[in-house]
């Protein structure tokens, strides 16, 4: 019988631990497929953050490291500098990357570390129960912004691609979404480009992926996809923010 579809060899047999309707599974699949297609799975090192994807080291079929909260880009720096033939990626949420680990993110980009960051922006702290993140939208209610985020109290949501684009040494930055099939395909392309640049030793690459958190948002999976499209995308425009390799 012809095989039409099978699980990527970049993922192992472990069942994912994510909530129903969460898009982590889609992004895991895209990263895993990319590593296989670029033939670098056997050279890859996955660095998991603290957050919902804390177990990511268990799912990818390559070397895996669990890092302290926010420190994944520093851990990635240590690995890549000491094992330059490895293909190193961090997989981080918005609390990990844009709050407690902002310094590590900014300075890995600033040094032009030859690593790839997969940044999951779902506008909330998922793992700890839906608290306010730096990326939480204005008026969005969370467990620590019960009346909605206000600009006067919590400031405007942080735009990571825009921020890192201002850093001279960052090489490739793109924001994508996985709320529908065309955008999932675009996300795959972006991830592949980022890893291709890493293989070519071009420098710091990051793909920011607008993602869902039905549990933290108190929305159904379908409504969550709508939230990404209608609420997140207007504030976080999709697109390439920097491409040092563009013709």
């Amino acid at each position: 019988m012809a095989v039409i579809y099978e699980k990527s060899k970049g993922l192992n047999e472990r069942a994912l631990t994510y909530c129903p309707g969460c898009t982590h599974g889609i992004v895991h699949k895209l990263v895993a497929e990319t590593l296989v297609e670029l033939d670098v799975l056997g050279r890859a090192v996955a660095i998991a953050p603290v957050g919902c994807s804390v177990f990511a080291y268990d799912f990818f079929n390559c070397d895996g490291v669990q890092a302290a909260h926010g420190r994944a880009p520093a851990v990635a720096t240590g690995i890549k500098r000491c094992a330059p033939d490895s293909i190193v990626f961090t997989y981080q949420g918005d609390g990990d990357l844009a709050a407690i680990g902002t310094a590590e993110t900014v300075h890995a980009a600033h040094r032009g570390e030859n690593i790839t960051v997969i940044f999951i922006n779902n506008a909330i702290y998922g793992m700890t129960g839906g608290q306010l993140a730096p990326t939480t939208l204005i008026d969005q209610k969370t467990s620590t912004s019960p009346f909605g985020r206000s600009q006067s109290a919590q400031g405007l949501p942080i735009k990571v691609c825009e921020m890192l684009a201002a850093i001279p040494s960052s090489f490739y930055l793109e924001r994508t979404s996985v709320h529908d099939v065309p955008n999932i395909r675009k996300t795959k392309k972006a991830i592949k480009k980022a890893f291709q640049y890493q293989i070519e030793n071009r420098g710091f690459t990051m793909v920011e992926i607008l993602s869902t958190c039905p549990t933290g948002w108190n929305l159904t999976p379908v409504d969550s996809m709508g939230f990404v499209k209608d609420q997140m995308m207007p504030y976080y425009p999709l697109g390439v923010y920097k491409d040092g390799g563009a013709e």
Partner: protein
Amino acid sequence: MKTLMKGNEAVSAAAIAAGCKAFFGYPITPQNEIPEYMSAKMAESGGVFVQAESEIAAINMIYGGAAAGARVMTSSSSPGIALKQEGISYLCAARLPCLIVSVMRCGPGLGGILPSQADYFQATRGGGNGDYNTPVYAPNSIQEATDLVQKAFNVAEQYRTPVMVVMDGLLGQMMEPAEIKPIPRFKNDTDKYATNGESGRRGRNIVNSLNLQAAALEQSNLRLAEVYKEIIKNEVMYESTVEDGDELVIAAYGTPSRIAQNAVAELRARGIKTGLIRPVTLWPFPDLAFQSLPSSVKNVLVCELSMGQMVQDVRLALNGKLPVHFYGRTGGVIFEPEEIVEKALEIAGGGQ
């Protein structure tokens, strides 16, 4: 051949001689000569040098470098080591070897940049979370520092643990003749644990400190405790000049032990039979050196450049068997041998 070397440069040179492959650090006085030396010499020896954006980033780069299977080293001083402690806890839990050199300055807070031993607790107890220990070596000369740095790398890899070498600022900043005598390198089978992107060749490795299952995490803590038991059994180092008939024992480590040596000579000249115990490992602590003292010993005097930290370990070791006295100076003030002699005479006269 011996050459005149500054302490901080000597430990750096010894680390490179021991095959240190990467240095990640952050500037802080009084240890700046270490990253400065490394920034030049690592380039010459084909190694890695990164000046990190923070102490926290530096220790996490160490976590990454050690995870990649490399011999890695960082150095810092008191407030900087405080910032590294979360990372040290993770390194212990994930069983990653590395060398951390701590050149102690005065605290608390920003304190001052003068020599101190007020970070004995920081080194031996640690401020990271969870049940962990780190072997801690405390040299008292630049020659010994170059020997212990090399040994520290071996011990780190043998037991898969971070190891600290603590020097008071005196040792970091002063110059002495020393010779780097290479020692055999521990054969570290990094294929067993390293996440260096070679899973295609040897299968997957995972570096991790997370375990949400109570029973499994307890097992992992018990395994760690077994490692610590082995270290306690095999790695204790100290020097003792205590003889039968001695009435007073002075205990001191690091550079102050050399000041105490002069005090001991003076006391003996004055007819007070005195011996010196110098712990070289602060953890594991040389309990036996104190527990096996001859019955002639009536008092123990602990001298430190702190308000009294190692003195607690001496009291724990003796468990009430002998009176334990303390003399210390802080803030960068260094005691003279005469001060120790005076304190010792007070004790010998029956004072507390």
